[in-house]
């Protein structure tokens, strides 16, 4: 009886072993996209965060997200949002992030971030967001907000906050006299990032000892 079971198990293992020769356990670089799920996410606009929210989070000291800059290294060196990590599209698939982390992606405009978002979504990263408007929007709204010369008293608080936020990130509010000045053309140099960024990782994860 016992020998019989052993024999059956051995035959089963051998059969699976032979079949294994034709198999490939790694999925490689191919990914699967759930189009319906994507459509729902995009329709409900829950795939992005606004620059205002992001600025608030950074100021409040929230650190429950990873901010990834998908532009290339030189652009990253030039300027990046505080706390951002340099993760160009080419290395993004292998970038050390966990699938349950909250990930915010940004690029100059939005296209590269959207492509990166698609890629991570397809690879099973659940909490992935894009920065709405990207770095351009960040510059326009956070670093160099245009503040009209004559503001009504009701609006004062709002603009005071804008100014404070801008100062926090080393930007400078633009006071235009009704004419909207394009911040990119403004002579103001890009602020130097003073906050801890890629040199001190956002969250130094304690090396998790796995296995036995």
């Amino acid at each position: 009886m016992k020998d019989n079971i052993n024999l059956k198990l051995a035959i089963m293992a051998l059969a699976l072993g032979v079949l294994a020769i034709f198999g490939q356990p790694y999925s490689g670089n191919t990914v699967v996209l759930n189009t319906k799920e994507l459509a729902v996410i995009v329709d409900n606009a829950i795939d992005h965060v606004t620059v205002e929210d992001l600025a608030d989070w950074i100021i409040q000291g929230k650190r429950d997200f990873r901010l990834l800059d998908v532009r290339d290294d030189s652009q990253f060196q030039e300027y990046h949002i505080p706390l951002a990590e340099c993760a160009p599209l080419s290395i993004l698939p292998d970038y050390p992030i966990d699938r349950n982390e909250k990930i915010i992606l940004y690029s100059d405009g939005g296209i590269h971030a959207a492509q990166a978002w698609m890629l991570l979504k397809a690879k099973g990263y659940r909490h992935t967001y894009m920065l709405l408007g990207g770095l351009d929007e960040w510059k326009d709204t956070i670093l160099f907000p245009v503040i009209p010369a004559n503001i009504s008293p009701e609006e004062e608080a709002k603009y005071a906050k804008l100014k404070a936020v801008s100062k926090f990130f080393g930007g400078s509010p633009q006071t235009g006299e009704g004419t909207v000045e394009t911040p990119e053309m403004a002579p103001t140099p890009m602020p130097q990032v003073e906050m801890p960024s890629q040199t001190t990782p956002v969250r130094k994860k304690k090396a998790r000892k796995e296995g036995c």
Partner: protein
Amino acid sequence: MAPFYKYGLFNDEVSLIVAFIIGIGFGFFLERAGFGSARKLVAQFYLTDMAVFKVMFSAIVTAMLGVFYLGWMGILDLSLVYLTPTYLIPQIFGGLLLGAGFVIGGYCPGTSVVAMATGKLDGIVYIMGVIAGVFTFGELYPLIQNFAQSTPMGKITLPQYMNMDYGIVVFIVVVIAIVGFIAASWIEKRVGGATS
């Protein structure tokens, strides 16, 4: 998709509960295989009872086939499964040390916990030895750090190292296991009967 933890299906705390349940199961089956007894375990080294070899090798083959086929079916993302980095020479040395401790003490770390849980005195003593050893290792680590980190090979698997197809290696391991089982039974008959 698996691994569940890496896909965020549960968090750190829940993962500990899952580990606890799996650990209880592991211990239960070790005990049922007779591995709560130092006599049974040490008999392996005297070649009178090859149960340890058989149980461990069938566990390896079962896990290997399971992981391989789950990966092939796209359920398990193998690239996310944690691999212990290889440091060849220190790990060979550590393996020999563990083996020597195994023969002398009669248990390996997992089975010593099983023995302790079933109330065996030698198991309790063994666990105290394990704790003392862990402590000593930790305290001496600065001195042996250079050795412990020598010959690093990274997170490498047999198929990668031998530059072979994963499936071929799976097949070879299955064949080795079956041949090993036949040889083990033959040795048992020659050297002496099972001790259970």
